[in-house]
């Protein structure tokens, strides 16, 4: 199977799962921005994406994407370290065109993954998971929240400045990860040339900035609202 035993095939898997996750992020952002305009509308979306069969199938698909992307990341890194050999250079200097992010995607990815763990604990565990096990309400900070009350969970989480800061750090790591990941995915599947590489880089930067700024806006909005 060329997707596992050829280097380009493995990169194709990395690229395709990466692009799918970028599309998911876009969808997630649109959903979050709704919470700023109307908490009722946001809670309707949360109800729609609760423990229904279609939402569960989509969640499983999403989990499969994440797991594939992460497993391949570690696998590729292990192979690459082996290919580098046992001796390391004593002196290494980076040229200006070589971006720091591009050489630290695994580290950034691990930060993103840790943030994701926190995020699942803050939201998914209180919402879809509680609904799956049959609970309708969750007790948080001495107050009961309905499992569909997404806006309530957002307000509760980001009223805590520590969570707000952790989420912003997480999102900044995501920004770095995306600025390289987006154009790199396109390059790996071969949709690039001397002209388009620069266009894709600009698109990556703009897209990552819009997405991350949007997420941060929601965090800051609800933190300020809690003051």
């Amino acid at each position, binding site marked *: 199977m*060329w997707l596992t*035993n*050829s*280097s*380009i*095939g*493995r*990169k*194709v898997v990395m690229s395709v799962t990466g692009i799918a996750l970028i599309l998911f992020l876009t969808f997630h952002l649109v959903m979050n921005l709704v919470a700023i305009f109307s908490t009722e509308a946001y809670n309707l979306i949360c109800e729609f994406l609760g423990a229904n069969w279609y939402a569960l199938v989509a969640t499983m698909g999403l989990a499969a994407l994440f797991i594939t992307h992460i497993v391949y990341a570690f696998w*590729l890194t292990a*192979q*690459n370290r*082996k*290919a*580098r*050999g*046992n*001796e*390391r*250079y*004593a*002196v*290494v*200097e*980076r*040229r*200006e*065109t*070589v*971006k720091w992010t*591009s*050489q630290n*995607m695994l580290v950034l990815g691990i930060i993103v993954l840790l943030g994701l763990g926190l995020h699942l604990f803050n939201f998914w565990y209180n919402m879809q998971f509680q609904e799956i096990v049959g609970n309708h309400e969750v007790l948080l900070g001495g107050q009961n929240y309905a499992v569909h009350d997404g806006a309530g969970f957002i307000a509760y989480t980001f009223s805590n400045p520590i969570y707000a800061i952790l989420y912003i750090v997480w999102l900044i790591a995501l920004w770095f990860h995306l600025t*390289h990941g987006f*154009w*790199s995915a396109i*390059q*790996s*599947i*071969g*949709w*690039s*040339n*001397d002209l388009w*590489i620069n266009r894709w880089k600009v698109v990556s930067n703009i897209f990552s900035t819009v997405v991350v700024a949007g997420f941060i806006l929601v965090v800051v909005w609800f933190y300020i609202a809690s003051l």
Partner: protein
Amino acid sequence: MDKNISFTLKVWRQKGPKAKGSFETFQMKDIHQSISLLEMLDILNERIINEGKEPIVFDHDCREGICGMCSLYVNGHPHGPGVRATTCQIYMRRFNDGETITIEPWRSAGFPVIRDLMVDRSSYDKIIQAGGYVSVNTGAPQDANAILIPKDIAEKSMDAASCIGCGSCVAACKNGSAMLFVSAKISQLNLLPQGKVEAARRAKAMVSKMDELGFGNCTNTRACEAECPKGISISNIARMNREFISAKLKD
């Protein structure tokens, strides 16, 4: 103006492929900046030979930047601090008085050290043997205008063909990936009508040989492109991936 400089030289010494290597330090005195880095090593080797010791082994041949033999990792860069220059094209005026110059061999599992600064790059030859050619029956040469090739295609092919196969892309890559070299060798042929016939077979054969020889996976850091003495573009990598993926999808 060029002047005489004195500096500390740290050179990687290793007795053989299996032996454990280490740095040996030399004090260089009054080296004129107008000589090349390799000539400086020649001067040092002469001194070492006169002392009755083993000279430093390093690869070199044409000393004019076209053969691709020289392969020194100088001060953190393959082929030294210069841009679009091979090791032999680096002159001592690049360095300052009192500086420490560190010289290492290419470090990659695909290029094992033979001795000191010389590495075994025969893996590149094996990749070429896997498909880096056009299988045609030789005979009387046909008229040069019989096959028309657009100017931009001819130029792209020529740019790819400027790869001298020195291995600095692998040396620069944190993943020890040979994608820049392989993609240049595939592109120079696949772009032209004469090479198109075998394009899919060539891409598959050369990529699979590259993987078999233990080179790493490309993560698009662009270090190869930045360090390439011939300025080969990573657009060649995109072209190779396109060809490889479409060939695999057709299978």
